[in-house]
């Protein structure tokens, strides 16, 4: 396609503005449209305006098929939000469910993106979809073998504290918490709801 557009570009070293061919004009027009969509996609990551959303609704098939669009992934480097804390999927707080990776490598990034998707669904109160993602991981691990299973295994998705997270962040309940039920090799998860505020006095002892 490039050859078609550029073959009639005339003398290569000329410094005079030449009359452009319609193929060249068409090609540049296409690239301007391409850049417009890419720019809209890049600029829509913080908070897309109504126009941006409408433009992206039209341009998304092109942007997604070619992977040119950022698709709401943040282009900013960091905002220091709790969302940027690394996520961990653990069984009973001590055992990592996902395999070890080299920190900072692409494999680590992929794990974090997958965990971020699980975390997002958990925050949106979509426990069945979270289970849909978590189950294949559990099925790959020892929790499918009853003899190796520990007592009352629980799977938790937690945010790892960082230097910027405060005490309240660190004491926040897990994003997702579920009991693993192993029925003779058949794995299932039952989500545990986080404790809610209540007017009932708890923790008292009667003597």
């Amino acid at each position, binding site marked *: 396609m490039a050859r078609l557009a550029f073959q009639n570009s005339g003398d290569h*070293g000329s410094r005079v503005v030449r009359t452009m061919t319609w193929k060249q004009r068409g090609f540049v027009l296409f690239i301007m449209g391409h850049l417009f969509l890419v720019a809209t996609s890049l600029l829509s990551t913080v908070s897309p305006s109504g126009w941006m959303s409408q433009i992206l609704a039209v341009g998304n098939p092109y942007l997604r*098929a070619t992977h040119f669009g950022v698709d709401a992934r943040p282009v900013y480097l960091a905002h220091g939000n709790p969302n940027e804390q690394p996520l961990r999927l653990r069984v009973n707080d001590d055992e990592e469910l996902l395999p070890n990776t*080299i920190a900072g490598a692409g494999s680590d990034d992929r794990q974090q993106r997958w965990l971020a998707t699980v975390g997002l669904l958990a925050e949106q109160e979509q426990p069945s979809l979270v289970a849909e993602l978590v189950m294949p991981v559990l099925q790959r691990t020892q929790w499918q073998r009853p003899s190796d299973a520990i007592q009352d295994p629980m799977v938790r998705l937690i945010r790892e504290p960082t230097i910027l997270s405060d005490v309240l962040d660190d004491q926040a309940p897990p994003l997702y918490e579920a009991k693993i039920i192993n029925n003779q090799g058949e794995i299932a998860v039952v989500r545990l709801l986080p404790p809610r505020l209540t007017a009932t006095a708890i923790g008292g002892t009667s003597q």
Partner: protein
Amino acid sequence: MMQAFDRLVAWWVSPLRISTIGLIRFALGLVTVFYFSDALTDVSFWFGVEGVHSSQNVAEFLQRSGLQDAAAASISPLFLTDSLWVYQTYCLLGIAIATAMMLGRGGQWICVAAWLSVVLWSNRLLWLAGLTETILSLSLFATCFAPTWKVPLWNRRNLIAGEADALSPATGFSIRLLAVQATLIGLATWLSMLAGEVWWNGTGAVALAAPESARSLGLVDSLRSPWIHEILTLAIVVTLPLGLSLAWRSGPDHSVRRYGVAILNGWAVLIAVLGSHWIYSGTLVCAFTAIQWAATPRELMPND
């Protein structure tokens, strides 16, 4: 109106030396080789019949979540199989194609193949893909238009001059597309960065390095001093627009553009070191480097 548009078209297709795209392709090929080598390390966890991200698991998830329409545009032949060896072979093929592109072998279509290999892989990744894949896809796409320039491995005289380094309008177009895209990415990054409080209160550099368990270099302890993290934050905020404005500066002094690109590349290296964004920064270095050639005024371009 048409004259103004023709001037724009003329800018896009102003010829540049073929060797410029050769150097960019070499560096981008190297980044792509690294990308697919890295993908090989965890391919067996995500893909294959028992893979966490197998086609079957993805299809079930999309069906239950009602996201089939959103994912429909992410086209990839890899969705058709769950054979692990296919995915491993695909990564090896990606490495081979990127190596050929690095060395300028296989003609112009090898660049198209390198771009498609990244796009189809990224589409298969779906929510496992990130900004790195987007920037790599955009940059490889931009290099597809220029003719091939063979890296002279054995005959260094070709590197200096001669037929292999002729001027080409298609090379000019490729270099400018790469440069404009890099500028858009830089500007979008800068603008959206500033929406975060950390870039105003001086802790931006700490925020970048804070998730220590996900960073190659544990630098948080060395950033505790306000002097260090505030200077680094200021440097990250200031150097990006400064580098872009210098690199795009038109004028007879080519060294100003080189300083601009050096500042931009320094910014990318700093981001890589603090945030462990190695492939992202490597791709940006390739794209930023193109700006110095794209910004050269027409009257300063060499004659054929």
